[in-house]
């Protein structure tokens, strides 16, 4: 069990690339923490520095209060699960799991006991004598986990451990990883690309971008109070809708029409010294089919009319996609998010809005529908630096 502290940790690769810069993270004993961010943002690098597989260029890494920058991986007592699982192909499942114990010169009986216990927990008992090459993806993943848990390390590091599994298996394994961690109570640092994993697994989430930490907090907090445009856009699926807006006389002029500011938003915007041109963000669930609401509810927000491009019925609710005429919101953060999602060139011809409507909605594809949105839930961002103008601690 361990507390891990990254104190202004920086990594500059030999070729000069600055992969991680001034990262401060305090991981409490037993905590499950997630590192998330787009490709190349330095997640693996950060993890490898904690592991000792990469040198730390500057800053300090402390485990249980002790500086460990200079320690070899084997002296840190940390286990790691790799994306490719990194199972030793020439050893059986049993030997793979026993390997760390044998290196630690644990006696034979204990090794057998521990390996069998881990195999039982992970449901691998009948595969113990097979070679990794003959296992399915999910089984390999479990062997990798098994190899990590057998020696009761101080901490687990996992680098995208589920990304090689198919969608269904990934959901299954996600819950078992979570259960396992709860059961063992071992400090865990988990890297992922997938924000659903980030939202569901961790006690806290660290959002990274370009080697910098953007925000640290519980998944719910990041969702409700993103510190900036980047976090707002990265967390949540489908992601937040962004629109350009002009702030004038307590009113927002947007492609959806004029929106009067609610008291909460006005107060926060004034306190944050909001500029004239802003970007507003609205989550899909803050929209609703206007015909389902009474006037009282409607008065708390605005409405607009648009044609439904695509309607996806999920059973429990419906996703309706609209294109809103006019400008689209632009900023460096949004461009980067679009690039990471691979949708950089999909946004021509107006802004795409994704809304989540009740299952009762009668909206149909190609028909014009009146849509209501909750103006009080709106978030406002400064396009120049991405800062959330409606952020409250």
């Amino acid at each position, binding site marked *: 069990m361990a507390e891990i502290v990254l104190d202004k940790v920086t990594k*500059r690769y030999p070729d000069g*690339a600055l992969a991680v810069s001034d990262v401060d993270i305090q991981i409490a004993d037993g905590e499950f923490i997630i590192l998330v961010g787009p490709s190349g943002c330095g997640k693996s690098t950060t993890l490898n520095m904690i592991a000792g597989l990469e040198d730390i260029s500057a800053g300090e890494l402390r485990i249980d209060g002790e500086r460990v920058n200079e320690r070899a991986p084997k002296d840190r007592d940390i286990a790691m699960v790799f994306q490719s699982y990194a199972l030793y192909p020439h050893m059986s499942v049993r030997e793979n799991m026993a390997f760390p114990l044998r290196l630690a010169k644990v006696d034979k009986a204990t090794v057998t006991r521990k390996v069998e216990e881990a195999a039982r927990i992970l449901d691998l008992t009948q595969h113990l004598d097979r070679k990794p090459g003959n296992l399915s993806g999910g089984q390999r993943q479990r062997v990798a986990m098994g190899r990590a848990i057998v020696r009761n390390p101080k901490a687990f590091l996992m680098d995208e451990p589920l990304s090689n599994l198919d969608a269904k298996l990934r959901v299954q394994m996600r819950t078992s990883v979570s259960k396992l961690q709860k059961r063992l109570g071992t400090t865990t640092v988990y890297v992922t690309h997938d924000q659903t994993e980030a939202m569901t697994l961790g006690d806290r989430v660290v959002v990274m971008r*370009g*080697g910098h930490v953007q925000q640290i907090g519980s998944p719910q907090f990041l969702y409700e109070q993103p510190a900036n445009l980047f976090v707002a856009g990265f967390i949540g699926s489908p992601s937040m809708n962004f629109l350009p807006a002009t702030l004038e006389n307590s009113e927002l002029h947007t492609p959806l029409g004029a929106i009067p500011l609610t008291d909460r938003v006005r107060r926060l915007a004034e306190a944050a010294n909001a500029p004239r041109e802003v970007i507003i963000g609205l989550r899909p669930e803050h929209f609703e089919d206007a015909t389902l609401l009474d006037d009282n509810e409607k008065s708390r927000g605005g409405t607009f009319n648009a044609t439904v491009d695509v309607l996806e019925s999920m059973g429990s609710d419906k996703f309706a996609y609209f294109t809103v005429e006019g400008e689209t919101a632009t900023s460096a953060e949004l461009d980067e998010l679009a*690039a990471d999602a691979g949708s950089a060139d999909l946004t021509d011809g107006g802004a795409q809005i994704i809304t989540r409507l009740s299952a009762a909605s009668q909206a149909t594809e190609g028909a014009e529908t009146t849509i209501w949105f909750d103006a009080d839930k709106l978030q406002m961002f400064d396009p120049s630096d991405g800062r959330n103008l409606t952020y409250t601690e």
Partner: protein
Amino acid sequence: MSHTVQQTRPARPDKGKRAVSEGKKAERKLGLLLCAPAALVMLAVTGYPIVYSIWLSLQRYDLRFPDQQKFIGIDNYVTVLTNSYWWTAFGVTTLITVISVAIELVLGMGLALVMHRTLVMRGLVRTVALIPYGIVTVVAAFSWRYAWTQDTGYLARLFAPEAALLTERVPALAIIVLAEVWKTVPFMALLLMAGLALVPDDLLKAASMDGASAWQRFTKVIIPVMKPAILVALLFRTLDAFRVFDNIFVLTNGAQQTGSVSMQTYNNLIKGLNLGIGSTMSVLIFLAVAVIAFLFIKVFGTSAPGGDGGKR
């Protein structure tokens, strides 16, 4: 595995590109250190001798008359290139190369298909096919020689009991080609088989769904997809065939104008002890091989195998 799609983030230029860090330096040093011995041996045993042989080729240098060593410019080249024996040998070499490589390509392709697709005894077929590849060329050559020797040989008895085929020019050349082909078809087939393995099964299935017959699948799908592998195999074998020596030495010893350029060089050097002429021939063969390789790479666009060298 990190994702290959990288965010283009300008590396902060404060440290400049020239400042190679410690880690990088150490890596370079280790790389050079590890490669140095191999590189040195290869250079010492080929690089220097090649230069030396160019130098020797410009000398009159007959080991029987070592005192008469003298720089004579390109006289040796004139001597060799105006000599009908040289051109005969060159013609024989080219002929053997072209014919045997052509036959090898066809048979090799057949054998590759057999090894790739056979339903039964695949292991056995692959194992026996390796025997001609592995066997010492001289041993195989003796086997062929005795097989075609009058009285002694089963093939001679079968096909030409009355003639001494190895002493007639055309049959002798045919036997040389036979020996070459026998020995190298399996190697060709292995190279082609590796290319065959690169043709996805789905592609062939798609082609049959599109109505292609087996032959059309072969010519329209398999061959085009395999083209790089075929060209590499052809390049390797052509260069190799051009060096033909062992088989000729054993089968005919170059008699009846069946000698290759390698035989000519060997005879001038070891038998004639004429270093000047021998070296001249060495240089000429080297040039011929360079031209062949150049043609393959330029005309057919053969990509040099392993030429990418780096991490994939």
